């Protein structure tokens, strides 16, 4: 009986997460902050990175994919909770029989799907317009999916501070996302970065996602594949648990 009840509870919470995902997709995917920080940002960064440099286009593709994934997957999370607080829909949402954990899982899922879908664009453009080719599809997919999962979890964690103003949280999220971009081997391979930067690089989930995506395109990577897979799973779990803790802690202050 207890097992049956547990299964029922899990089913309902998973269902709740999927409903939250559907709501987020309907409401937030096309919001200006998501499009600006999730789509335009990586496009401009790519142009700034590529223009005027004599780098073979196919070598840029893995970086472009990783960067697009980084911005898109982590763009939804920071927006949802502050937006809901400001729109006064948050209190009703958390009084439904869907736990805060399930709500946050739904938010992470929203970032995962958004990031994964949009990262297909640079992958296809890269393959179609340059000499880049996929050497290992499973590694590329693992890099994109696990990367999106951990980046999205980071985005949801960044939404925890009790601010009802989305721009404040977007600012905070960029304060975290932009520095990590530069130490994760996107613009300069980790092996060629200064020693101090090589020490910091393992602290960023983007370093590992970038490594897997590079492997997917048959490029050399600084981290072994097993470590990248493990670290992305670890980052996702830690960031999700931290999100649950901080969202709960600051819940009443954000109402």
């Amino acid at each position, binding site marked *: 009986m207890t097992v049956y009840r547990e299964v029922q509870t899990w089913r*309902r919470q998973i269902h709740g997460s999927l409903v939250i995902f559907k709501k987020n997709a309907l409401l937030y995917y096309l919001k200006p902050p998501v499009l600006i920080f999730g789509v335009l940002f990586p496009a401009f960064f790519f142009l700034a990175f590529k223009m005027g440099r004599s780098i073979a286009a196919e070598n840029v593709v893995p970086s472009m994919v990783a960067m697009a994934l980084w911005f898109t997957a982590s763009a939804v999370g920071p927006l949802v909770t502050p937006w809901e607080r400001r729109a006064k829909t948050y209190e009703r949402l958390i*009084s439904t*029989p869907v736990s805060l954990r399930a709500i946050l899982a739904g938010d992470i899922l929203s970032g995962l799907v958004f990031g994964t879908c949009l990262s297909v664009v640079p992958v296809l453009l890269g393959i179609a317009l340059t000499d880049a080719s996929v050497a290992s599809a499973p590694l590329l997919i693992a890099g994109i999916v696990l990367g999106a999962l951990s980046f999205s979890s980071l985005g949801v964690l960044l939404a925890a501070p009790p601010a009802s103003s989305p721009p404040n949280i977007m600012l905070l999220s960029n304060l975290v996302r932009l520095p990590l971009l530069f130490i994760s081997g996107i613009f300069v391979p980790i092996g060629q970065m200064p020693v101090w930067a090589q020490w910091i690089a393992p602290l960023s989930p983007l370093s590992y996602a970038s490594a897997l995506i590079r492997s997917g395109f048959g490029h050399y990577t600084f981290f072994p594949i097993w470590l990248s897979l493990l670290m992305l799973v670890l980052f996702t779990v830690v960031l999700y648990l931290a999100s649950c803790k901080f969202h709960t802690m600051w819940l009443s202050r954000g109402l």
Partner: protein
Amino acid sequence: MEVAIEVQNMTRKYGDLVAVDHVGFKVYQGEIFGFLGPNGAGKTTTIRMLTGVIDPTEGSATIQSHDIRKESLLSRAHISVVPEEANVYVDLSVWQNLMLMAELHYVTRDQRVHEAGRLLEILGLTERKQQKARELSKGLRQRLMLCAALVTGPEILFLDEPTSGLDVESARLIRQIVTDLNQKGLTVFLTTHNMSEASEMCSRVAIINKGRIAAIDAPEKLRLIISSRQYVEVHFADTAPDHIELESLSDVLQIDSNKQSFRLYTNVPGRVATEVVRLSDRRGMEIVHLSTGKPSLEDVFLHFTSEREEGGSR
């Protein structure tokens, strides 16, 4: 009677501020329970604790026998909420708003489609089904909020100031629907500033002041507690006795006057009314209007809330 909500010693502190201070009460199945109090008294905090939005600092409460902390999801499965400062999803259509809330409550597809259609009809929103919620007026949005709360098929409905700031038609419609549903067995926990609304709708009310329960009973019985606020109202035609003359009548406790009209507060309104008639006969004065009255719920409310403030009793 079966208990729907039971609260014991529930307390909520924000740092040094005690927002709700060891409150305790029961709400029975099928009643409309009014929760009254001035601004900042702890009404919304109490609702937020009962609906699982925030945790109590101390004490406990059950909803349909489920502990709100240990079995939070089960307790929330029985309720629906219309919070005071809440809104619908303005970028979703009326229909999408309803489906979203129903899906979050795990209502089956057939049932949610059927219920949503029925409720939209009752609340006069059928023609606006495909409209974005941002295009609705405040009154219509509040109707949609109620609709979204009811489409989940709750056993207990929490309403936090549901008619505050609404037009007369929407307020009346919401009151009517809540009363009708209550007659079919829905338990309602209602906070309101509107005393006539509470008096008209609630079978029992609790008055909360500075985080503590000051009184709980049926509105009628609460009125009896302050029997000294019963009164005789009299309006004289051309000439009226002076204030001192009326005050000297036996059993008159206090007088409010306005030109030819007087309100005489007393414990025995019948006797004072007779005295007033005798006085007017003796003096040859004509009485245009004479009536007796009981204290309103508003008088009861003011009695309990101002008493605590004057006494500073916490």
